[in-house]
């Protein structure tokens, strides 16, 4: 009996059936494709437009496909920044009856940027450092929930602008596994592999003349290890102090908040005499500021964007002289009077350039710049008009930065 095409998905999109599953992915006609990935990958990957969105399709062994699908679903439920799996498709056959490999379908992460495109578009001296910071945060978050990645690299990560920094998302979980808790050996191995892979990827950019020769690529790789270890220590290390220094409990919690994490559980022990206190965070959760902003306004944005928006909320409170008012009422007014009108002012044709929260962040930067220039408090909406007229038109579309267009790829072959 011939095996039939089988689609496993939480909510299958019938449009998936229209794709040419009887053709090996590498040979899909260019009119179906949105883009091809840059760089060499172990597996054939293609981007395709489907029902108004973009999906990524990867050809891969059946058991690995199911494994990765499940793992990505679990990561999503655990609130870890990662791509959303859509389906596993098995039982593919070519027209001559030859079986074809299974595929894993994931949603393309909107407004995400592969590291190669970041390096080829925005060559800023500190781009690498900001990417490394984002990757260190992601790796710490994954390790906190017991996820061993097994192949950490820049190319297995996507980056999204997050105010002045970046937020990193896991793209490839093929070699990963979830454990109740990671051993130090697993964490250190993952970190060492990350360092090696990142240096390798930067050496490749150097060889491709994208990165200046003479960039300290080993130094950048080492900085990941440093960042990771600092963050891990700040979030998990035990500290002890005299019983008369109890303020240090609060100070520790504030420190964790400043790093963008919440302390859900803190263990505190005192020795028999009660003169020495030990504290250690047991459960920490990322997204301290984004959750706070979401509670106040319903906006779902990334951590650094949330920080920026919250500080504008404080700015608004001061300007309006509403210091004593309940924060939720104030947040509601800020949302309807400041944030939403700013976003609505963007012409439809320009909306694919930046995420709303990122755009607002840029307007705030622009407001600061205008205020400095004109030596007065420029209102946000006025700054927005000026930003939309003078800055945004020159920005590239970033909603779907995918890789090579099918035409460019054909030229390269």
């Amino acid at each position, binding site marked *: 009996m011939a095996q039939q095409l089988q689609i496993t998905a939480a909510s299958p999109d019938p449009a998936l059936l229209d794709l040419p599953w009887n053709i090996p992915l590498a040979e899909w006609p260019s009119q179906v494709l949105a883009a091809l990935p840059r760089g060499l990958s172990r597996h054939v990957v293609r981007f395709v437009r489907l029902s108004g969105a973009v999906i990524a399709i990867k050809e891969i062994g059946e058991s690995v496909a199911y494994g990765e699908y499940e793992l990505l679903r679990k990561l999503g439920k655990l609130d870890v920044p990662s791509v959303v799996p859509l389906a596993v498709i098995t039982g593919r056959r070519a027209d001559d009856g030859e079986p074809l490999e299974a595929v894993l379908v994931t949603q393309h992460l909107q407004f995400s940027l592969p590291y190669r495109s970041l390096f080829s578009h925005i060559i800023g001296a500190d781009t690498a450092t900001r990417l490394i910071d984002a990757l260190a945060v992601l790796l710490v978050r994954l390790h906190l929930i017991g996820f061993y990645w097994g192949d950490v690299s820049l190319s297995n990560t996507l980056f999204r602008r997050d105010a002045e920094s970046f937020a990193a998302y896991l793209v490839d979980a093929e070699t990963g596994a979830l454990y109740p808790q990671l051993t130090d050996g697993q964490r250190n191995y993952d970190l060492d592999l990350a360092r090696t892979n990142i240096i390798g990827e930067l*050496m490749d950019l150097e060889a491709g003349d994208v990165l200046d020769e003479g960039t300290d690529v080993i130094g950048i790789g080492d900085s990941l290890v440093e960042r990771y270890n600092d963050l891990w220590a700040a979030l998990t290390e035990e500290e002890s102090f005299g019983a008369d220094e109890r303020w240090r409990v609060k100070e520790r919690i504030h420190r964790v908040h400043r790093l963008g994490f919440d302390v859900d559980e803190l263990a505190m022990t005192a020795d028999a005499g009660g003169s020495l206190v030990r504290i250690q965070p047991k459960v920490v959760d990322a997204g301290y500021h984004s959750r706070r902003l979401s509670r106040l306004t319903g906006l779902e944005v990334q951590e650094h964007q949330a920080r920026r928006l919250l500080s504008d909320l404080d700015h608004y409170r001061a300007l309006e002289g509403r210091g004593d008012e309940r924060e939720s009422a104030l947040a509601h007014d800020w949302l309807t009077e400041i944030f939403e009108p700013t976003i609505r002012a963007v012409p439809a044709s320009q909306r694919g350039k930046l995420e709303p929260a990122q755009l607002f962040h840029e307007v705030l930067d622009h407001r600061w710049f205008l205020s400095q220039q004109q030596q007065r408090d420029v209102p946000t909406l006025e700054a927005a008009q000026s930003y939309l007229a003078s800055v945004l038109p020159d920005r590239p579309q970033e909603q779907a930065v995918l890789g090579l267009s099918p035409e460019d790829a054909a030229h390269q072959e």
Partner: protein
Amino acid sequence: MASVTFENATRLYPGTERPAVDSLNLHINDGEFLVLVGPSGCGKSTSLRMLAGLEDVNSGRILIGDRDVTDVQPKDRDIAMVFQNYALYPHMSVAENMGFALKIAGVPKAEIRSRVEEAAKILDLTEYLDRKPKALSGGQRQRVAMGRAIVRQPQVFLMDEPLSNLDAKLRVSTRTQIASLQRRLGVTTVYVTHDQTEALTMGDRIAVLKDGVLQQVGTPREMYDTPVNVFVAGFIGSPAMNIGTYDVVDNTAHIGSATFVLPRTAADELAAEDSTKVTIGFRPEALDLTTESDPAGIPIDVNLVEELGSDAFVYGVIATAEKSESVVSRGAEVIVRVNPRSVPGKGTRIYVTIRPGQEHVFSPTTGLRLASA
């Protein structure tokens, strides 16, 4: 290069009662290719990760050569996990792709080049060294990945189901390549798989695990010919060994209507156990066709014949199945390899005898192999 020794090595996950790996004792010789095999959850990957330093060893120790590495960090163990990551860098030459980890480690340029050239020779990649990976075929790209591990000159290679994400065709050819490459390099290798065919075809020796406990370790031939218990007997070999538990009267087992005289030593051991039953295994290829008049002829009703050209397999049931109580999930189903030139028809009854000396006799209570004649 070095030997690897597990000494009572145990891994107990926090919050569980049964160890994932229970007092593993295993010595892997210098240069040996050892395959850890078993069903999912048997502890094979955990054992490998303990050797890699990715899992804590809760008791016992692990040695590489004479060095106790139980508490040594993964990167300081002088091991290489092969095939874990093999993204190739498009702008770097094949040589640079193979040697970049040495460059990071600060190895002098001349030495990198000589190690890369040496590895390339073994991998048949010499003529591609100065090309970009784009110019390589899929198989060659995999060899570059292998080269990355080789140039580091580790004491031990570790491979955890490296073929699982390849398609069926590439899996078979890569299997052969890895095995022959390992023999040429002579680097001690520990390889994990759930596939007993992979284990039989690749390993110098095979270690079978179940529920965290090492069942048996030996050459493929030993595992096949003298499995120490019912589990190993059923796990090694494809199609699987026929295994059933039968009544014993006067040193004779009754398989359906057939009688099978037990080897003396086995019969003695059963008597010592005070057992009136015996578990007997016989491989599909250890059976000869006979006639109805033969008292040793086991009657089998043919359900299906699978013809593979070089072989043919009869799938049937022992005709008077009510006396047999099978220990395998297949029920009373029996597989018989027959001459593909004369296959019995579906629905017919055939009679088979176990070739002398090719029976496997196990205790029905412990499942352990009984000394055979």
